[in-house]
């Protein structure tokens, strides 16, 4: 059989395969450069960038859970200036496709980040993180803690960022909602080119010997294989009502996991904390997806998106 085509288009971004990495689990790309050639990824998604560097939460910040982990990093990141000056050159030199994940405290901050990244060539697409469970929106004194929990605010934020940039814009959503379709549709109405889901699920772990929470933040975000079925279901729910593509993630460890997301309706996928366990996990997922296509006689991987058989 001829080599299958793994090319996809994610809301205006051409990717040589459907696999990127999840923000916060791959640093700024160079960190994994000694394990494999990171330009083989469909795209590199960088850690959430904020206007100013952030020191993050106090330790302990991570706690292991069954087939997964909780984290409460609090978006420790170098900030956009250091990213542009020190981190970006590596990614550009390697000819990587870059999805820059952004985090702000107001729609205007997101817009400013988007504008700067576009103007200074810092990204090929943007993923706005409206769903980090570990930081507080300073201006939000009532209502849900996360922007992604309010469809109205998702729409407002998306519109403001949309107006600021012509780069492909993805909105990253939280699974901590009753119905994922509502924020997903709000992002679409606001002008997003794709939605990315899921961010981590809120969770808690307690050390019974000391009776203390395992994280200084008390609660954190759950990720890893444990959350995969939840994520696949949310992709399935969202993809059926959207006209824009879905970037699916949550617990992907193997190629079969990634294929599940495509079948449920995702156009592309992100490998997250699996990279902590296997630094080359994303590369193995790409290889395994190619093998799957060959085994099933699929010439174009795009044919798998939403190809779930119901009978």
């Amino acid at each position, binding site marked *: 059989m001829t080599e299958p085509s793994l090319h996809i288009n994610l809301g205006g971004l051409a990717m040589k395969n459907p696999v990127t990495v999840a923000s*916060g*689990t*791959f*640093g700024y790309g160079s*960190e*994994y450069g*000694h*394990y494999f050639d990171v330009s083989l990824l469909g795209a590199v998604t960088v850690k959430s960038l904020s206007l100013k*560097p952030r*020191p*993050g*939460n*106090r*330790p*302990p*910040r*991570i*706690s*292991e*859970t*069954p*087939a*997964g*982990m909780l*984290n409460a*990093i*609090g978006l*420790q990141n*170098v900030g956009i200036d250091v990213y542009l000056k020190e981190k970006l050159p590596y990614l550009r030199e390697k000819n990587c496709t870059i999805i820059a994940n952004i985090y702000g405290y107001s729609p205007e901050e997101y817009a400013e980040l988007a504008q700067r990244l576009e103007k200074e060539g810092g990204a090929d697409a943007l993923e706005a993180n409206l769903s980090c469970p570990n*930081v*507080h929106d300073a201006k939000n004194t009532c209502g849900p803690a996360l922007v992604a929990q309010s469809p109205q605010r998702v729409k407002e934020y998306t519109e403001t960022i949309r107006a600021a940039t012509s780069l492909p814009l993805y909105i990253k959503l939280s699974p901590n909602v009753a119905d994922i379709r509502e924020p997903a549709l709000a992002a679409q109405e606001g002008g997003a080119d794709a939605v990315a889901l899921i961010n981590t699920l809120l969770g808690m772990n307690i050390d019974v010997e000391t009776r203390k929470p395992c994280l*200084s933040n008390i609660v954190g975000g759950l990720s*890893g*294989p444990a959350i995969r079925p939840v994520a696949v279901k949310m992709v399935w729910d969202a993809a059926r009502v959207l006209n824009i593509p879905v970037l699916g993630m949550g617990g992907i*460890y193997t190629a079969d996991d990634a294929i599940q997301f495509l079948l449920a309706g995702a156009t592309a996928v992100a490998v997250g*904390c699996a*990279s*902590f*366990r296997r*630094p*080359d996990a994303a590369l193995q997922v790409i290889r395994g997806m190619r093998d799957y296509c060959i085994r099933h006689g699929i010439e174009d991987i795009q044919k798998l998106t939403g190809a779930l058989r119901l009978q």
Partner: protein
Amino acid sequence: MIHLLDCKVLSNDEVAPGHRRLVLDGKAIAEDTCAGQFCMLESSPGLQPFLRRPMSIERFGGDSFSVLYKIVGEGTRLLGRIQPGDTVNVQGPLGNGFSIPKEFKRYILVGGGIGIAPLPGLAQALIRETGTPPEVILAARSRDILLCQEDFTRMNCPVFLVTDDGSAGMHGFASNALEARKPDKNTLVYTCGPMIMMGAVHRICMENGSRCQASLEANMACGDGVCMGCVVETTLQEEFRRMVRVCHEGPVFDSRDIRWNTGTPAHD
């Protein structure tokens, strides 16, 4: 250079109650390790436990290296079941090991419990760099878990034992034993063990004008500077150095840079 290798198990023997030494075939890792560096081991090939386990590289050089470990939970219990001939996936060497500035007159190693693991390798490096065997304080809860004593005596290091229950050597804590050795401003102390012990060792060093390098522990996910999960708070003023990664900037730090009592107010 950091490697990701399937290493064949050469042996995995008990060395003291609840403590084992896992010897692994892995020339690339053995050759590239410096004293005080660590590796991330898969304690099981499956998804449970999900994360790798950080372990100091104890012996290295030649074709193999070892880790000395204490069984405390699920991951180390599974490690304890591994048989010679099995393979274990290892990522390493990771982090920055001990540094050996030459201007000191005395070098004292203080190891508590399983924290002794990286110190025989350090003693060897000190002998190579300074020509003199360092003094060694070995602390443990009781005599049956004082580890690596023969390694140090073989290198002609003066060894001072101290146990919590007085079953061997001095009755007391590592910091008491260090104080009795009268460290001064020409002394460099290296320490690895429980945080509470290292905090006490740090204080004795500050009181006596000595310098101290401490090898810290923290929960880790990636072990390689990516997840920002393993940070400790520092005394450094610059905003961005307030939190440093044990796996990347450490695990060995100048003890003055660490905020030993973490009762400081939360910030975000």
